[in-house]
């Protein structure tokens, strides 16, 4: 990027199934206020606001950024609304960073939110296509065949999915912001109802009410501050949804997006060079698919990386120390939470789920039919 960009403030809400104490405006405002407080900025200091949220059908408000412009501190400013399916929180951050890198603005707020309790996510995720059959089963049923295909192709044992759930929830228990903070045992996961074979209830993400916000700033603003996370790489890529020969387990767009970010960040060997990764895993098995897609493990070897313990909080390359999407999932904000957690790791502010000495962190989000990707690398140093 032409100008250096840094995260100078981060904020997220308390996440829960139903945040009945706040409206959507209050929810988003909670994250914004915390991010601005962290950045020691007033709302008037923000030059532009980038808003990300998942389909308008979730809350039933068309382009809610128009209604929320005042609550987000966007009145009188540029407000841009991004929507790239599940990756939206990630692409919101990528867009905000570009706005600073372009030289147009000095301080740009990225905010993403979802209030699942005001709608029906399963319905919103099951669009009736004009010339297709009704698809009333949501994201779990869409991705379950991917998980089955992966297990068959890679020869992974059947308990890999459940073990991923145990890891995620153990980490979530250390994260005071996580929606699900109770750890679960392998037996509990195995005993939970099968929802979409092979995904059990405890291997599935929750639906959360929550929001997240990051303040991106130019080098001039960031310089001299005690705790910043430098943007070392950023990219958002996509590929066509469906065609013969498309590898849904290892999408080319994901690989290309990771390559672009690694090139910017000077990462040659991701498993060695990255200190921590926050990746988007709404269902257990998806975790190990992305190990491979991101180059942390070889093809069909992602499950072995999981089995080795390398991706545990104290492992060689911790993945999702926050507990990930399996512990907290306000869909529109989940991608931004990945970026936020990655940035907070290199700022050394993660408390109970801090990775010791994290200096370079990857944030990852995906969406659609595994065909939208947004990724960023954050460093404790500018380059």
């Amino acid at each position, binding site marked *: 990027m032409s100008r250096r960009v840094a995260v100078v403030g981060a904020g997220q809400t308390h996440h829960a199934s139903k945040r009945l104490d706040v409206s959507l405006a209050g929810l988003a405002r909670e994250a914004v206020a915390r991010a601005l407080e962290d950045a020691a900025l007033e709302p008037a200091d923000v030059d532009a606001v980038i808003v990300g949220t998942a389909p*308008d059908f979730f809350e039933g408000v068309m382009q809610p950024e128009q209604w929320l*412009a005042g609550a987000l501190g966007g009145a009188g400013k540029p407000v841009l609304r*991004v929507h790239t399916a599940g990756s939206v929180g990630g692409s919101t951050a990528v867009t905000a960073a570009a706005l600073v890198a372009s030289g147009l603005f000095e301080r740009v707020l990225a905010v993403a939110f979802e209030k699942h309790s005001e709608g029906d996510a399963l319905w919103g995720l099951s669009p009736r296509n004009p010339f297709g059959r009704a698809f009333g089963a949501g994201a779990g049923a869409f991705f379950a065949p991917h998980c089955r295909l992966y297990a068959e192709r890679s020869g992974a044992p059947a308990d890999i999915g459940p073990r991923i759930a145990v890891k995620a929830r153990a980490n979530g228990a250390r994260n005071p912001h996580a929606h699900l903070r109770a750890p679960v045992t392998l037996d509990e996961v195995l005993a939970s109802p099968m929802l979409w074979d092979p995904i059990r209830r405890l291997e599935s993400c929750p639906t959360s009410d929550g929001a997240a916000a990051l303040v991106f700033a130019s080098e001039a603003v960031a310089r001299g501050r005690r705790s910043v996370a430098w943007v070392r790489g950023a990219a958002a890529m996509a590929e066509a949804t469906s065609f013969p020969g498309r590898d849904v387990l290892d999408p080319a767009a994901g690989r290309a997006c990771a390559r672009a970010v690694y090139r910017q960040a000077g990462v040659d060997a991701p498993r060695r060079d990255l200190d921590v990764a926050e990746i988007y895993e709404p269902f257990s098995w998806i975790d190990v698919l992305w190990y491979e897609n991101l180059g942390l493990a070889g093809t069909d070897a992602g499950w072995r990386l999981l089995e080795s313990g390398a991706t545990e909080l104290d492992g060689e390359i911790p993945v999702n120390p926050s507990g990930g999407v399996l512990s907290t999932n306000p869909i529109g904000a989940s991608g931004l939470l990945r970026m936020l957690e990655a940035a907070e790791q290199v700022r050394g502010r993660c408390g109970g789920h801090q990775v010791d000495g994290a200096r370079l962190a990857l944030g990852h989000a995906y969406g659609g039919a595994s065909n939208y990707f947004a990724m960023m690398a954050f460093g404790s140093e500018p380059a």
Partner: protein
Amino acid sequence: MRRVAVVATAQTDLTSGDSEVGTPERAFEVSRAAVEASGLDRGEIAVTLSASSDMLEGRSFNFVHGLEALGTWPPVHESHVEMDGAWAAYAAWVKLLTGEFDSALVVAWGKTSEGSLPAVLNTQLDPFVLAPLGLDHVTTAALQADAYLARTGVGMDALDAVAERSAAAGAANLRLSRMDPPREDGPAASPLWRRHLPREADGACAIVLAAEGTAERLCERPAWIAGADHRTETGALGHRDLSRSPATELAATRARELAGWDDAAVDVAEIGASFAHQEPLLREALGLDAGADVNPSGGPMAADPLMSTGLIRLAEAASRVMAGTARRALAHASAGHALQQSMVWLLDGVAP
């Protein structure tokens, strides 16, 4: 600021109801046409930005289906805004300004005929305070018209003149030749009559942007972006001065600062005036003088395909600069109720 220009544009015919084709087909038509017009191969386009609205299309993730049509294999750098295409063009411009990319394809589509526009646009309002009142885009525009007429003393005859001029310009615009005849006139929402309203339309638009070094190679006379900006007003109608467009004034001021333009003089202006009163209101906010040819395409009053209507304003202004019939041009796009959001582009036939 890096120099970036519009080097190619494409539009579908705008129709009163595209019942025989889906929006991905329209997105395919314009994205292919714009890429061909640019002289680049699809694989040479560095980044792609798309724009559409799920609520307008009546299904969630409509843009995922649109993605198929944009030539997205092998994978491309891509992002989507849930806004009018003018904002996708802004996001693309930003990407080029960073220096990371040298060219961009911007595609927007919208099919208002999929549903009832008043019902759809009611959901755009504050769901606690405003939407339950049953307001829609016509009634909020009528509130604005009332406020504007009261402040300025402009009479209904001025609004009628805007409507007549727009209809005449629209009749001369070949892209509008498949539009249905205007509906019978009659009262809409006081003080507006149906002749003062936008004509709902379906359509898509695409443009190609290129940075200096590439733009001159592709285009004999690129439409250079001298400056651009967009602003938003609060969503609370009661907190806004509806008789003016502060968002437009702020965006125009900032765009002129970026451009280093001392005055507002342009040869042509394509502006997002969907309702008759919005044309004089926006002329004032933009500081347009009498020398500017305003909405020679007929503007949104002649055909208003939501989500692409703003990008069409930019394409219309840019195509006149590229054709050499205008030296300096202004494009203005608006979104939301009563011009809640506004964007201003300043284009120059001579590199800034």
